[in-house]
């Protein structure tokens, strides 16, 4: 250390200048602060975010699921409970009479979506703030899963790589979702 560093005072003054620079800059540019005021201001989510599940419907409103159990087999957390029943439509053979997902067990790995041969289950609802008062309501049944809508601005069909009109991370947007 040379004598300037040894007496501390000069370096302390430089440190004070640095902190004051941050203070003044942040006072003058409140909007540029990296903080996201969470409940009011939400961070844009990727369309590939694995959020709460939903079951996709056929055109007549019944689930696409054919109760093949591939998702329940793939599930490492064993949170999917399926009971199969006979379908009235002969071309389908099987339908789930019961399809429950226990969100408290789910690890949001997305293997069920990968496993599904019918594109019947997806995790594209964009719901990630899952808060409930009791354990029972964390178990989503068939009707709840069917009713849950996809993330706004997504379209039914296979997930495309990019979608117009969706704010995603890293697409020229800052972390507040501003362009």
């Amino acid at each position, binding site marked *: 250390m040379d004598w300037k560093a040894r007496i501390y*005072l000069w370096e*302390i003054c430089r*440190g*004070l200048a*640095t*902190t*004051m620079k*941050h*203070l003044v800059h*942040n*006072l003058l540019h409140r909007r540029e*602060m*990296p*903080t996201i*005021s969470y409940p009011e201001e939400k961070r844009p989510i990727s369309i590939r975010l694995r959020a709460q599940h939903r079951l996709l419907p056929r055109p007549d409103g019944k689930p696409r699921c054919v109760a093949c159990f591939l998702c329940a087999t793939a599930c490492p957390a064993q949170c999917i409970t399926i009971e199969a029943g006979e379908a009235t439509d002969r071309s389908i053979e099987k339908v789930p009479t019961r399809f429950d997902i226990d969100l408290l067990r789910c690890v949001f790995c997305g293997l069920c979506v990968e496993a599904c041969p019918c594109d019947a289950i997806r995790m594209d609802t964009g719901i990630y703030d899952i808060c409930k008062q009791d354990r029972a309501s964390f178990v989503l049944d068939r009707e709840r899963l069917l009713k849950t809508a996809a993330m706004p601005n997504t379209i039914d069909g296979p997930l495309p790589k990019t979608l117009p009109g969706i704010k995603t991370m890293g697409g020229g947007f800052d972390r507040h979702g501003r362009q």
Partner: protein
Amino acid sequence: MGFPVEPVAMVAKVVIIPVILMTSVPLWVWVERRGSAFIQDRLGPNRASICGFTFFGLLHMVADAIKAFTKESFVPSQAHRFYYLIAPGVALVSALMAFAVIPISDDLMVGTHRIPMSIAQVDGGLVYVFAMASLGVLGIILAGWAAGSKYPLLGALRTAGQMLSYEVSLGLAALGAFLAFGTLDPNEIVRAQGGTLAGVVPLWGILVQPLGFILFLVAGFAECNRLPFDLPEGESELVAGYHTEYSGMKFAMFYMSEYIAMITFASLVVTLFFGGWQVPWVSTIRMVSVIGPLSAMVVQIGAFAVKVAFFVWLFIWVRWTLPRFRYDQLMRLGWMVILPLSLANIAVTAFVMALVG
């Protein structure tokens, strides 16, 4: 028998000055929390609101006060009850008492009465300040010992070591200023700083005692237990230091005494080195003749408040700039750097004063 000016003024001072000191504490806590947040590129506390108005987070301080007042008054079973209960009081009262002799403006003339604008006029007033400031360590040791728990005890021991070491340097650094001004009366010291050097630079104490000022400031940081010398606390190794076992209003009293000690120390720096209530380039006589005694007093109190506010802000500013010292580094700095330098400062000042006077 006319209007009892002097007793009324006395009571007014005794009531108003401590109340302002204590009510300014939440404000400083707010400045500290928001200021630190902005320094660290955060927003800081801004959630508490009444009807959607947050008042820049000021309501958090109201919420904190309500919380402190309504919390259960809890005494740990292993604590020494009597000392445990009086320790926060000792800390707070000693911090408040030290402010008593600091003049916040020039003497106010009401008719023929001359009212000094400090609570107490003690002979050798600044020695009294140091006496009271050193009582503060008593409250901390008492708290650490009476809590009957090992972490507060360790924190209190470290505090005792730190405060006793730096008190020596603090007194010696101030001694240079006392020598230069030739008096211990704070009001006289402030009056002596009224002139200007060549009509431009205010003749404040820092011009006479630049080294004394730096040493006094550093020692003062240690005395107030503020970063970079906040060893009494130490979340990583001591939980919270001497006030680990305290909660509710008793904890809030320690918190308040810390901030009041900061304000008192800032006023001491201002009194000794930055002209106290002196408004630069304008003497009291000139100001009184132009705007009257009462407005002159208000202006002087304002000048004093601005200077003190700057130094309290400096405390906060430094806290969020510097990392803390290790205990051995602290002791080495105190005994091997600050102390010899303040002794040398005294020797040189005494020599020069002997030559001049």
